[in-house]
């Protein structure tokens, strides 16, 4: 079966692109931050440099790893589900469920390994750049060079491969068991994640306000809540549809009508696209707002801001930026993959008399609902972390720059989701409808 997996990867590199990209981005982020641990453990390093490196790696590496785990897993779930037809065929030709599971997991591992291998180079370059910035800010002594060692590589490959294999196993099990049952596992996992996230956010209050790692608890908590809420997001889509149906039909015409019908019936399957969207909104809002609050707190502490302080702020933004960009790429990647997969459906709509622009309007209307759902779920998750951190770190509750930051993030999410969906759809409907339905 592994031979079959290898062959199936070689035959269809295009369909695996989404998985490969997710594994690549994910592994790059994990290797980058965990290589700071390797750097901190070189012999002869001074304790100050080692502490700065470990702190940066720990604060971001923790929730960064969680994000990668969730991101790679959600992409895998999406791509495995896209192949349910092929798996049905294999089953009918006599493949046992065990063989199919081994094939899909083998494939996932193969692609994830390729993605992680490709990520090593960029991660080393990124690590060097990051350590160079740490030199500039004086947090790390100039003589300390960036090193990639067993921790960075182990974490990078370990996280990427286990996320890929785990998600492939869960997704393929659902497919080989025939009709998907009620998603009880997902509901339980979602509830657990929300509870754990609330715990993380709550832990903020138990910590010392001046502790440098204070940001990690609310950030981690918010991201966990985001992931947990993603499990319930299909229900949110269903709840939104009655209210949105009218405006969507008015705004997008027959395209809006089709979007409403699709969203209602496919809400459960949308979880794979909603997960990165909610993670992006939740994660970007919480980390960027925390950073802004932290900077304000330092500025307000009465000490004059030195050049180092400003450098430190920039550095933190760079670090947060890397993770934010990762989430945004993940969102684009999964939406593009999900849209390209609908080639046949778009063809059928066109054969029934839909013009290209009606199909595109449908995709636009769906993207709008997805973004709205992502914002509605991601915002409260982020708010939990932001408000508790602000309360502990400062004597206020409402952070000053939160609103413009949030608006910016929503705009980026809408732009990324809209463009990823529409650009892919435009390319997909270029194929003649009669060809699109026959392949």
């Amino acid at each position, binding site marked *: 079966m592994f031979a079959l997996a290898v062959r199936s990867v070689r035959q269809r590199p295009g369909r695996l692109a989404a998985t490969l990209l997710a594994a690549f981005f994910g592994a790059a982020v994990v290797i980058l931050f965990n290589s700071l641990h390797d750097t901190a453990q070189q012999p002869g390093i001074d304790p100050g440099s080692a502490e700065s490196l470990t702190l940066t790696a720990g604060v971001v590496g923790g929730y960064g790893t969680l994000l990668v785990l969730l991101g790679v897993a959600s992409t895998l779930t999406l791509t495995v589900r896209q192949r349910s037809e092929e798996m049905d065929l294999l089953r009918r030709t006599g493949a046992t469920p065990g063989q199919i599971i081994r094939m899909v997991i083998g494939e996932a591992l193969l692609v994830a390994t390729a993605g992680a291998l490709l990520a090593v180079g960029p991660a080393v370059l990124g690590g060097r750049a990051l350590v160079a910035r740490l030199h500039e800010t004086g947090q790390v002594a100039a003589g300390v060079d960036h090193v990639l060692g067993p921790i960075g590589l182990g974490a990078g490959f370990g996280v990427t491969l286990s996320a890929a294999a785990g998600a492939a196993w869960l997704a393929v099990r659902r497919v080989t068991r025939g009709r998907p049952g009620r998603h009880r596992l997902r509901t339980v996992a979602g509830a657990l994640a929300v509870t754990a996230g609330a715990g993380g956010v709550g832990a903020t209050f138990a910590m010392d306000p001046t502790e440098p790692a204070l940001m990690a608890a609310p950030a981690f908590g918010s991201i966990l809540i985001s992931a947990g809420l993603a499990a319930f997001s299909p229900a949110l889509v269903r709840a939104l549809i009655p209210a949105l149906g009218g405006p969507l039909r008015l705004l997008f*015409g*027959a395209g809006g*009508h089709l979007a409403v*019908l*699709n969203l*209602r*019936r*496919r809400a459960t399957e949308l979880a794979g696209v909603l997960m990165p969207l909610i993670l992006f909104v939740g994660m970007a809002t919480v980390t960027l707002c925390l950073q802004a609050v932290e900077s304000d707190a330092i500025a307000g502490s009465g000490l004059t801001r030195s050049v180092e302080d400003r450098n430190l702020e920039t550095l933190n933004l760079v670090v947060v930026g890397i993770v934010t960009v990762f989430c945004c790429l993940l969102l684009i990647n999964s939406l593009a993959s999900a849209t390209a997969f609908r080639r046949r*459906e778009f*063809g*059928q*709509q*066109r*054969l*029934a*008399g*839909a*013009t*290209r*622009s*009606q199909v595109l309007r449908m995709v636009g209307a769906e993207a709008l609902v997805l973004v709205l759902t992502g914002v509605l779920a991601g915002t409260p998750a982020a708010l939990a972390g932001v408000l508790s951190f602000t309360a502990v770190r400062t004597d206020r509750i409402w952070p000053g720059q939160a609103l413009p930051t949030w608006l910016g993030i929503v705009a980026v999410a809408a732009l990324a989701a809209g463009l990823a969906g529409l650009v892919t759809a435009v390319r997909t409907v270029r194929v*003649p*409808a*009669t060809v699109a*339905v026959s392949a």
Partner: protein
Amino acid sequence: MSALRLTGVRRAYGSGEAAVTALDGVSLDLATGSFTAVMGPSGSGKTTLLHCAAGLERPDSGLVEVNGEPMPGGSETRLTRFRRERIGFVFQQYNLLPTLTALQNATLPLTLAGKRVDRARAIALLEEVGLGDRLHHRPDQLSGGQRQRVAVARALVTAPSVVFADEPTGALDTRSARDVLALLRSAVDRHGRTVVMVTHDPVAASYADSVIFLADGRLDPAGELRRPSADAIAARLAHLGDQAVGTGV
């Protein structure tokens, strides 16, 4: 009055050495209220003929007229608008939308054309195809025969000038096939629709008023068979196959 007229329609695929001529100057004229079957060996150009006549593909040259109106050139959008008002299509693989119910699928062409959906009329249509108790079922809750009957209702819902059917019984068991063919027949007899059906099955073709034969992208010069029996059609097809072998194609 002719519902469909093709004049010198040509269509080739590929270019240069590898070019394959699928239609080599086909002309035909089908009267309103007629039921015509198109037959021929595989690769004879049947499906291309149907796609060109239905506006799903553009011919390289030649003219296609529906109810006296020429198929418009220009953007695909113009062609789609023309098509969805005048032409109904039944596919071998149904091509129903999986997220829509039977009723929603059947009325989809009206919705897309921005027309008011006459619910009562659509329900009456689905009752006529025997699906009055399946209105709110989705395609995956219907059998193959039921799906194809939804597709027939969808093809008829706009009261089109011509209904095209591409191997409509190709994926069905004998009984379901008979039901679908009877529906197409009654669309012609009771509602005066015009039906053009591609099929390789002589029994299916025997439901038509006349059968035309296609070989190597041309209409068989021996002409059409009128009110044929399945046996007569099978004999003619065998003859056509021999000819093709005989000319070394």
